[in-house]
Protein backbone atom coordinates (compact mmCIF):
# COMPACT_ATOMS: atom_id res chain seq x y z
CA UNK A 1 0.00 0.00 0.00
CA UNK A 2 1.40 3.40 -0.91
CA UNK A 3 1.15 6.45 1.31
CA UNK A 4 -1.68 8.01 -0.69
CA UNK A 5 -3.79 4.86 -0.38
CA UNK A 6 -3.03 4.64 3.29
CA UNK A 7 -3.98 8.27 3.83
CA UNK A 8 -7.24 7.74 1.94
CA UNK A 9 -8.14 4.71 4.05
CA UNK A 10 -7.20 6.47 7.26
CA UNK A 11 -9.35 9.43 6.28
CA UNK A 12 -12.28 7.15 5.47
CA UNK A 13 -11.94 5.39 8.81
CA UNK A 14 -11.85 8.72 10.62
CA UNK A 15 -15.01 9.89 8.84
CA UNK A 16 -16.80 6.64 9.64
CA UNK A 17 -15.76 6.84 13.28
CA UNK A 18 -17.01 10.41 13.38
CA UNK A 19 -20.37 9.37 11.95
CA UNK A 20 -20.65 6.48 14.37
CA UNK A 21 -19.91 8.64 17.38
CA UNK A 22 -22.38 11.28 16.18
CA UNK A 23 -25.03 8.61 15.81
CA UNK A 24 -24.23 7.10 19.21
CA UNK A 25 -24.45 10.54 20.79
CA UNK A 26 -27.85 11.13 19.26
CA UNK A 27 -29.32 7.77 20.21
CA UNK A 28 -27.87 8.28 23.70
CA UNK A 29 -29.66 11.58 23.93
CA UNK A 30 -32.89 10.00 22.70
CA UNK A 31 -32.61 7.24 25.29
CA UNK A 32 -32.04 9.86 27.98
CA UNK A 33 -34.98 11.92 26.73
CA UNK A 34 -37.25 8.86 26.81
CA UNK A 35 -36.23 8.10 30.39
CA UNK A 36 -36.95 11.71 31.27
CA UNK A 37 -40.35 11.63 29.58
CA UNK A 38 -41.34 8.40 31.33
CA UNK A 39 -40.98 10.18 34.67
CA UNK A 40 -42.57 13.42 33.45
CA UNK A 41 -45.97 12.22 32.27
CA UNK A 42 -48.81 10.53 34.04
CA UNK A 43 -51.51 8.33 32.58
CA UNK A 44 -54.70 10.23 32.06
CA UNK A 45 -57.95 8.83 30.66
CA UNK A 46 -57.23 6.79 27.55
CA UNK A 47 -53.69 8.18 27.17
CA UNK A 48 -51.37 5.67 28.86
CA UNK A 49 -47.61 5.98 29.19
CA UNK A 50 -47.07 3.56 26.28
CA UNK A 51 -48.00 6.45 23.96
CA UNK A 52 -44.41 7.58 24.54
CA UNK A 53 -42.99 4.34 23.09
CA UNK A 54 -42.05 4.88 19.45
CA UNK A 55 -42.59 2.48 16.57
CA UNK A 56 -40.08 2.23 13.73
CA UNK A 57 -41.61 5.08 11.69
CA UNK A 58 -41.74 7.44 14.65
CA UNK A 59 -38.21 6.58 15.79
CA UNK A 60 -36.74 6.97 12.33
CA UNK A 61 -38.64 10.10 11.37
CA UNK A 62 -37.79 11.91 14.62
CA UNK A 63 -34.19 12.04 13.40
CA UNK A 64 -34.94 13.99 10.24
CA UNK A 65 -36.06 17.57 10.47
CA UNK A 66 -34.97 21.01 9.45
CA UNK A 67 -32.36 20.66 6.74
CA UNK A 68 -31.84 16.93 7.31
CA UNK A 69 -33.96 15.38 4.58
CA UNK A 70 -34.94 11.72 4.86
CA UNK A 71 -32.39 9.76 2.80
CA UNK A 72 -33.92 8.01 -0.20
CA UNK A 73 -33.12 4.47 0.98
CA UNK A 74 -34.64 5.15 4.41
CA UNK A 75 -37.76 6.60 2.81
CA UNK A 76 -38.11 3.58 0.53
CA UNK A 77 -37.76 1.17 3.45
CA UNK A 78 -40.51 2.97 5.40
CA UNK A 79 -42.85 3.30 2.44
CA UNK A 80 -42.50 -0.37 1.53
CA UNK A 81 -43.03 -1.58 5.10
CA UNK A 82 -46.03 0.69 5.67
CA UNK A 83 -47.62 -0.18 2.31
CA UNK A 84 -47.57 -3.84 3.33
CA UNK A 85 -49.55 -2.97 6.48
CA UNK A 86 -52.52 -1.37 4.72
CA UNK A 87 -55.69 -3.47 4.82
CA UNK A 88 -57.96 -2.53 1.96
CA UNK A 89 -61.71 -3.20 2.29
CA UNK A 90 -62.59 -6.86 1.68
CA UNK A 91 -65.59 -5.85 -0.47
CA UNK A 92 -63.33 -3.90 -2.84
CA UNK A 93 -65.45 -0.74 -2.39
CA UNK A 94 -63.61 2.43 -1.44
CA UNK A 95 -66.38 4.99 -1.48
CA UNK A 96 -68.82 5.54 1.39
CA UNK A 97 -71.10 8.49 2.04
CA UNK A 98 -69.54 11.91 1.49
CA UNK A 99 -72.06 13.62 3.81
CA UNK A 100 -70.84 11.53 6.70
CA UNK A 101 -67.28 12.06 5.40
CA UNK A 102 -67.73 15.82 5.73
CA UNK A 103 -68.71 15.42 9.40
CA UNK A 104 -65.66 13.24 10.02
CA UNK A 105 -63.44 15.79 8.27
CA UNK A 106 -64.83 18.52 10.54
CA UNK A 107 -64.58 16.61 13.83
CA UNK A 108 -61.49 17.23 15.92
CA UNK A 109 -62.32 14.89 18.77
CA UNK A 110 -60.55 11.65 19.45
CA UNK A 111 -57.63 10.07 21.27
CA UNK A 112 -56.90 13.03 23.58
CA UNK A 113 -57.05 12.19 27.26
CA UNK A 114 -59.88 14.68 27.56
CA UNK A 115 -61.94 12.76 24.95
CA UNK A 116 -64.49 10.05 25.73
CA UNK A 117 -63.03 6.83 24.26
CA UNK A 118 -66.54 5.43 23.79
CA UNK A 119 -67.28 8.08 21.15
CA UNK A 120 -65.98 7.70 17.58
CA UNK A 121 -62.93 9.78 16.65
CA UNK A 122 -62.94 12.42 13.96
CA UNK A 123 -60.37 12.87 11.20
CA UNK A 124 -59.96 16.63 11.64
CA UNK A 125 -58.89 16.89 8.01
CA UNK A 126 -59.81 20.59 8.00
CA UNK A 127 -57.20 21.23 10.68
CA UNK A 128 -54.57 20.73 7.95
CA UNK A 129 -56.33 20.80 4.56
CA UNK A 130 -58.60 22.97 2.46
CA UNK A 131 -61.42 20.74 1.18
CA UNK A 132 -64.77 22.35 0.32
CA UNK A 133 -65.31 25.90 -0.81
CA UNK A 134 -67.87 26.48 1.96
CA UNK A 135 -65.44 25.80 4.82
CA UNK A 136 -63.09 28.76 5.05
CA UNK A 137 -61.70 27.76 8.43
CA UNK A 138 -59.04 25.34 7.24
CA UNK A 139 -55.39 24.83 8.10
CA UNK A 140 -52.31 24.72 5.90
CA UNK A 141 -50.05 22.01 7.32
CA UNK A 142 -51.15 19.81 4.41
CA UNK A 143 -51.78 20.74 0.74
CA UNK A 144 -55.19 21.92 -0.51
CA UNK A 145 -57.46 19.02 -1.44
CA UNK A 146 -60.00 21.24 -3.18
CA UNK A 147 -61.33 19.51 -6.34
CA UNK A 148 -59.24 16.44 -5.47
CA UNK A 149 -61.30 13.93 -7.50
CA UNK A 150 -61.92 16.34 -10.34
CA UNK A 151 -58.22 17.08 -10.73
CA UNK A 152 -56.92 13.53 -10.21
CA UNK A 153 -59.70 11.74 -12.07
CA UNK A 154 -62.61 9.72 -10.68
CA UNK A 155 -60.86 6.41 -11.39
CA UNK A 156 -60.86 3.21 -9.32
CA UNK A 157 -57.06 3.50 -9.02
CA UNK A 158 -57.34 6.97 -7.57
CA UNK A 159 -60.06 5.79 -5.17
CA UNK A 160 -57.74 3.05 -4.00
CA UNK A 161 -54.85 5.50 -3.62
CA UNK A 162 -56.99 7.88 -1.53
CA UNK A 163 -58.13 4.99 0.68
CA UNK A 164 -54.55 3.81 1.20
CA UNK A 165 -53.31 7.34 1.81
CA UNK A 166 -55.82 7.99 4.60
CA UNK A 167 -55.28 4.50 6.03
CA UNK A 168 -51.50 4.86 6.13
CA UNK A 169 -50.03 8.13 4.87
CA UNK A 170 -46.46 6.91 5.46
CA UNK A 171 -46.83 4.27 2.74
CA UNK A 172 -46.74 7.04 0.12
CA UNK A 173 -44.66 9.75 1.74
CA UNK A 174 -42.18 8.69 4.41
CA UNK A 175 -42.15 10.90 7.50
CA UNK A 176 -45.28 12.75 6.43
CA UNK A 177 -46.90 14.98 9.04
CA UNK A 178 -50.23 13.33 8.32
CA UNK A 179 -51.50 10.75 10.86
CA UNK A 180 -51.94 7.10 9.86
CA UNK A 181 -55.68 7.01 10.45
CA UNK A 182 -56.36 3.34 9.69
CA UNK A 183 -53.06 1.92 10.87
CA UNK A 184 -53.37 3.55 14.28
CA UNK A 185 -57.06 2.76 14.68
CA UNK A 186 -58.13 6.39 14.71
CA UNK A 187 -60.77 5.89 12.01
CA UNK A 188 -62.72 2.72 11.16
CA UNK A 189 -62.92 1.22 7.68
CA UNK A 190 -66.38 2.74 7.16
CA UNK A 191 -65.19 6.18 8.30
CA UNK A 192 -62.25 6.05 5.89
CA UNK A 193 -64.63 5.10 3.05
CA UNK A 194 -66.75 8.10 3.98
CA UNK A 195 -63.84 10.59 3.84
CA UNK A 196 -62.63 8.98 0.61
CA UNK A 197 -66.12 9.67 -0.77
CA UNK A 198 -65.74 13.27 0.34
CA UNK A 199 -62.58 13.43 -1.79
CA UNK A 200 -63.67 11.24 -4.69
CA UNK A 201 -67.46 11.38 -5.13
CA UNK A 202 -68.32 13.65 -8.08
CA UNK A 203 -71.30 14.93 -6.05
CA UNK A 204 -69.14 15.85 -3.06
CA UNK A 205 -68.73 19.58 -2.38
CA UNK A 206 -64.95 18.99 -2.58
CA UNK A 207 -65.45 18.53 -6.33
CA UNK A 208 -68.14 21.14 -6.92
Amino acid at each position, binding site marked *: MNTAQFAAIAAAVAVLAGCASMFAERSDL*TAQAVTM*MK*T*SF*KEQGQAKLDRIDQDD*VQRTCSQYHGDAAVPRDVAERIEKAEAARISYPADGKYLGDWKSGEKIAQAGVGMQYSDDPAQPSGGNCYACHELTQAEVSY*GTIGPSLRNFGKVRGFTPEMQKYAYGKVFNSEAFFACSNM*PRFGQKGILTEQQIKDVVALLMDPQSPVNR
Partner: protein
Amino acid sequence: MKRTRRTASVLCLLGAFGAAAAIAQQRSAVEEIERYRAALSDGNPAELWEARGEALWKEKRGPKNASLERCDLGLGPGIVKGAYTVLPRYFADTDKVEDLESRLVTCMVSLQGLTPEQAKKDPFGGPGKKVPMDALVAYVASESRGMKMNVAASHPKEREAYELGKTIFFYRGGTHDFGCVTCHGADAKRIRLQDLPNLTATADAQRAYGGWPAYRVSQGEVRSFQWRLNDCFRQQRFPELEFVSPASIALTMYLAKNANGGVFDAPSIKR
Protein backbone atom coordinates in the same frame (compact mmCIF):
# COMPACT_ATOMS: atom_id res chain seq x y z
CA MET B 1 -105.40 23.23 6.10
CA LYS B 2 -104.90 23.73 9.79
CA ARG B 3 -102.85 20.57 9.89
CA THR B 4 -100.56 21.62 7.04
CA ARG B 5 -100.05 24.94 8.66
CA ARG B 6 -99.05 23.24 11.88
CA THR B 7 -96.65 20.96 10.06
CA ALA B 8 -95.23 23.92 8.28
CA SER B 9 -94.65 25.79 11.49
CA VAL B 10 -93.02 22.74 13.06
CA LEU B 11 -90.79 22.42 10.02
CA CYS B 12 -90.05 26.09 10.27
CA LEU B 13 -89.09 25.74 13.91
CA LEU B 14 -86.87 22.76 13.14
CA GLY B 15 -85.25 24.74 10.38
CA ALA B 16 -84.63 27.59 12.77
CA PHE B 17 -83.03 25.19 15.23
CA GLY B 18 -80.82 23.80 12.49
CA ALA B 19 -79.75 27.25 11.43
CA ALA B 20 -79.20 28.22 15.04
CA ALA B 21 -76.93 25.21 15.53
CA ALA B 22 -75.06 26.06 12.37
CA ILE B 23 -74.37 29.61 13.43
CA ALA B 24 -73.71 28.71 17.07
CA GLN B 25 -70.04 28.10 16.38
CA GLN B 26 -69.75 31.31 14.43
CA ARG B 27 -71.58 33.23 17.14
CA SER B 28 -69.32 31.97 19.88
CA ALA B 29 -66.37 33.18 17.82
CA VAL B 30 -68.04 36.59 17.53
CA GLU B 31 -68.72 36.61 21.26
CA GLU B 32 -65.09 35.78 21.87
CA ILE B 33 -63.96 38.70 19.77
CA GLU B 34 -66.39 40.95 21.66
CA ARG B 35 -64.95 39.78 24.97
CA TYR B 36 -61.49 40.32 23.59
CA ARG B 37 -62.33 43.90 22.65
CA ALA B 38 -63.91 44.51 26.03
CA ALA B 39 -60.85 43.06 27.76
CA LEU B 40 -58.55 45.31 25.75
CA SER B 41 -60.51 48.48 26.44
CA ASP B 42 -60.39 47.81 30.19
CA GLY B 43 -56.65 47.26 30.08
CA ASN B 44 -55.20 43.78 30.51
CA PRO B 45 -57.19 41.74 33.05
CA ALA B 46 -53.89 39.99 33.87
CA GLU B 47 -53.19 43.04 36.04
CA LEU B 48 -55.59 41.57 38.60
CA TRP B 49 -53.41 38.44 38.74
CA GLU B 50 -50.25 40.53 38.90
CA ALA B 51 -51.58 42.53 41.85
CA ARG B 52 -52.73 39.40 43.67
CA GLY B 53 -49.35 37.80 42.94
CA GLU B 54 -47.43 40.74 44.35
CA ALA B 55 -49.50 40.59 47.54
CA LEU B 56 -48.91 36.81 47.78
CA TRP B 57 -45.17 37.31 47.24
CA LYS B 58 -45.06 39.58 50.29
CA GLU B 59 -47.52 37.70 52.45
CA LYS B 60 -46.28 35.53 55.31
CA ARG B 61 -47.61 32.04 54.56
CA GLY B 62 -47.01 28.37 55.27
CA PRO B 63 -45.81 26.51 58.38
CA LYS B 64 -42.78 28.81 58.63
CA ASN B 65 -44.97 31.89 58.33
CA ALA B 66 -42.59 33.50 55.87
CA SER B 67 -42.98 35.50 52.68
CA LEU B 68 -41.25 34.74 49.39
CA GLU B 69 -39.33 38.01 49.48
CA ARG B 70 -36.00 36.24 50.06
CA CYS B 71 -36.57 33.83 47.17
CA ASP B 72 -33.64 33.69 44.73
CA LEU B 73 -35.09 33.56 41.23
CA GLY B 74 -31.65 33.55 39.66
CA LEU B 75 -30.50 37.13 40.05
CA GLY B 76 -30.03 36.96 43.82
CA PRO B 77 -32.38 36.72 46.83
CA GLY B 78 -35.40 38.98 46.50
CA ILE B 79 -34.64 40.26 43.01
CA VAL B 80 -37.74 40.00 40.85
CA LYS B 81 -36.94 42.63 38.23
CA GLY B 82 -35.72 40.86 35.08
CA ALA B 83 -35.82 37.40 36.65
CA TYR B 84 -38.03 35.89 33.96
CA THR B 85 -35.52 36.78 31.24
CA VAL B 86 -32.78 34.55 32.70
CA LEU B 87 -34.97 31.52 33.39
CA PRO B 88 -34.71 28.57 33.18
CA ARG B 89 -31.26 28.38 34.75
CA TYR B 90 -29.13 26.16 36.97
CA PHE B 91 -29.44 26.61 40.74
CA ALA B 92 -26.63 25.32 42.92
CA ASP B 93 -28.83 24.91 46.01
CA THR B 94 -31.03 22.31 44.31
CA ASP B 95 -28.39 21.20 41.80
CA LYS B 96 -31.11 21.45 39.16
CA VAL B 97 -32.18 23.52 36.20
CA GLU B 98 -35.41 25.27 37.16
CA ASP B 99 -37.97 27.40 35.35
CA LEU B 100 -40.00 30.06 37.14
CA GLU B 101 -42.74 27.71 38.28
CA SER B 102 -40.41 25.04 39.65
CA ARG B 103 -38.30 27.72 41.36
CA LEU B 104 -41.42 29.10 43.05
CA VAL B 105 -42.16 25.57 44.28
CA THR B 106 -38.58 25.35 45.62
CA CYS B 107 -38.98 28.62 47.53
CA MET B 108 -42.40 27.69 48.92
CA VAL B 109 -40.76 24.57 50.30
CA SER B 110 -37.49 26.05 51.58
CA LEU B 111 -38.75 29.44 52.80
CA GLN B 112 -42.37 28.81 53.72
CA GLY B 113 -42.08 25.17 54.84
CA LEU B 114 -44.69 23.70 52.50
CA THR B 115 -44.25 20.10 51.36
CA PRO B 116 -43.45 19.74 47.63
CA GLU B 117 -46.87 18.11 47.20
CA GLN B 118 -48.60 21.10 48.79
CA ALA B 119 -46.58 23.55 46.72
CA LYS B 120 -47.36 21.72 43.44
CA LYS B 121 -51.03 21.12 44.18
CA ASP B 122 -53.44 23.12 41.97
CA PRO B 123 -50.93 24.48 39.46
CA PHE B 124 -53.65 25.94 37.22
CA GLY B 125 -56.75 27.95 38.12
CA GLY B 126 -60.23 27.33 36.75
CA PRO B 127 -63.77 28.63 36.98
CA GLY B 128 -64.28 29.79 40.55
CA LYS B 129 -60.85 28.52 41.55
CA LYS B 130 -58.09 31.05 42.10
CA VAL B 131 -54.69 29.49 42.77
CA PRO B 132 -51.54 31.20 44.12
CA MET B 133 -49.27 29.82 41.37
CA ASP B 134 -50.95 31.65 38.44
CA ALA B 135 -50.87 34.93 40.34
CA LEU B 136 -47.22 34.60 41.40
CA VAL B 137 -46.21 33.72 37.85
CA ALA B 138 -48.12 36.75 36.49
CA TYR B 139 -46.45 39.05 39.01
CA VAL B 140 -42.88 37.85 38.46
CA ALA B 141 -43.31 37.81 34.67
CA SER B 142 -44.72 41.34 34.66
CA GLU B 143 -41.52 42.56 36.32
CA SER B 144 -39.59 41.55 33.17
CA ARG B 145 -41.90 43.27 30.69
CA GLY B 146 -39.97 45.20 28.06
CA MET B 147 -36.66 43.46 28.82
CA LYS B 148 -34.73 41.16 26.49
CA MET B 149 -34.67 37.39 26.93
CA ASN B 150 -31.21 36.43 28.08
CA VAL B 151 -30.99 32.76 29.00
CA ALA B 152 -27.38 31.68 29.55
CA ALA B 153 -27.57 27.94 28.84
CA SER B 154 -23.86 27.64 29.55
CA HIS B 155 -23.66 25.46 32.68
CA PRO B 156 -23.30 21.77 31.71
CA LYS B 157 -26.70 20.96 33.25
CA GLU B 158 -28.25 23.87 31.34
CA ARG B 159 -26.71 22.63 28.11
CA GLU B 160 -27.95 19.13 28.86
CA ALA B 161 -31.49 20.42 29.53
CA TYR B 162 -31.38 22.35 26.26
CA GLU B 163 -30.31 19.27 24.27
CA LEU B 164 -32.91 17.06 25.93
CA GLY B 165 -35.60 19.68 25.39
CA LYS B 166 -34.63 19.88 21.76
CA THR B 167 -34.81 16.10 21.44
CA ILE B 168 -38.29 16.09 23.01
CA PHE B 169 -39.39 18.86 20.64
CA PHE B 170 -38.58 16.66 17.64
CA TYR B 171 -39.80 13.43 19.26
CA ARG B 172 -42.78 11.99 17.39
CA GLY B 173 -45.06 9.46 18.99
CA GLY B 174 -48.57 8.56 20.11
CA THR B 175 -51.64 7.66 18.07
CA HIS B 176 -51.16 10.53 15.61
CA ASP B 177 -47.34 10.40 15.17
CA PHE B 178 -47.24 14.01 16.38
CA GLY B 179 -44.30 15.86 17.91
CA CYS B 180 -44.06 19.57 18.67
CA VAL B 181 -42.32 19.80 15.30
CA THR B 182 -45.47 18.65 13.46
CA CYS B 183 -47.25 21.88 14.34
CA HIS B 184 -44.35 24.23 15.10
CA GLY B 185 -41.57 23.19 12.73
CA ALA B 186 -42.32 25.26 9.62
CA ASP B 187 -43.00 28.90 8.78
CA ALA B 188 -46.44 30.41 8.20
CA LYS B 189 -48.56 27.33 8.88
CA ARG B 190 -51.88 27.27 10.63
CA ILE B 191 -54.35 24.82 12.16
CA ARG B 192 -57.81 25.85 11.04
CA LEU B 193 -57.39 29.64 11.32
CA GLN B 194 -54.93 29.63 14.23
CA ASP B 195 -51.44 30.72 13.28
CA LEU B 196 -48.71 28.33 14.38
CA PRO B 197 -45.36 29.86 15.34
CA ASN B 198 -42.28 28.11 13.95
CA LEU B 199 -40.57 27.59 17.29
CA THR B 200 -37.30 26.55 15.65
CA ALA B 201 -36.97 29.98 13.99
CA THR B 202 -35.71 32.95 16.00
CA ALA B 203 -38.30 35.63 15.21
CA ASP B 204 -41.29 33.35 15.78
CA ALA B 205 -39.78 31.79 18.91
CA GLN B 206 -39.12 35.26 20.33
CA ARG B 207 -42.66 36.40 19.68
CA ALA B 208 -44.26 33.19 20.96
CA TYR B 209 -42.16 32.72 24.09
CA GLY B 210 -42.25 36.43 24.91
CA GLY B 211 -46.06 36.34 24.97
CA TRP B 212 -46.47 33.86 27.84
CA PRO B 213 -47.89 33.86 30.50
CA ALA B 214 -51.08 35.20 28.94
CA TYR B 215 -54.59 36.20 29.90
CA ARG B 216 -56.77 33.93 27.76
CA VAL B 217 -60.01 35.66 26.89
CA SER B 218 -61.70 32.38 25.91
CA GLN B 219 -60.97 30.99 29.37
CA GLY B 220 -61.00 34.12 31.52
CA GLU B 221 -57.76 32.96 33.14
CA VAL B 222 -54.09 33.80 33.22
CA ARG B 223 -52.22 30.81 31.83
CA SER B 224 -48.57 30.03 32.50
CA PHE B 225 -46.02 28.54 30.11
CA GLN B 226 -46.32 25.26 32.02
CA TRP B 227 -50.03 25.32 31.14
CA ARG B 228 -49.25 26.02 27.46
CA LEU B 229 -46.98 22.96 27.28
CA ASN B 230 -49.49 20.82 29.15
CA ASP B 231 -52.25 21.72 26.69
CA CYS B 232 -50.14 21.21 23.57
CA PHE B 233 -49.16 17.72 24.78
CA ARG B 234 -52.87 16.97 25.18
CA GLN B 235 -53.40 17.98 21.54
CA GLN B 236 -50.38 15.85 20.69
CA ARG B 237 -52.33 12.86 22.16
CA PHE B 238 -49.61 12.26 24.73
CA PRO B 239 -50.38 11.40 28.38
CA GLU B 240 -50.61 14.30 30.82
CA LEU B 241 -47.46 16.35 31.32
CA GLU B 242 -46.81 16.69 35.03
CA PHE B 243 -46.42 20.18 36.42
CA VAL B 244 -42.74 21.23 36.72
CA SER B 245 -41.59 17.78 35.58
CA PRO B 246 -38.05 17.45 34.18
CA ALA B 247 -39.32 17.18 30.58
CA SER B 248 -41.40 20.35 30.97
CA ILE B 249 -38.36 22.27 32.21
CA ALA B 250 -36.08 20.88 29.49
CA LEU B 251 -38.56 21.90 26.79
CA THR B 252 -38.90 25.35 28.35
CA MET B 253 -35.10 25.65 28.32
CA TYR B 254 -35.00 24.82 24.61
CA LEU B 255 -37.74 27.31 23.74
CA ALA B 256 -36.52 30.10 26.04
CA LYS B 257 -33.02 29.94 24.63
CA ASN B 258 -34.40 30.00 21.08
CA ALA B 259 -36.16 33.22 22.13
CA ASN B 260 -32.97 34.91 23.38
CA GLY B 261 -32.65 38.52 22.30
CA GLY B 262 -36.40 38.91 21.89
CA VAL B 263 -38.29 41.43 24.00
CA PHE B 264 -40.33 39.81 26.74
CA ASP B 265 -43.84 41.25 26.61
CA ALA B 266 -46.05 39.30 28.99
CA PRO B 267 -48.51 38.72 30.58
CA SER B 268 -50.16 39.35 27.22
CA ILE B 269 -53.77 38.95 26.08
CA LYS B 270 -54.63 36.01 23.86
CA ARG B 271 -57.83 34.66 22.35
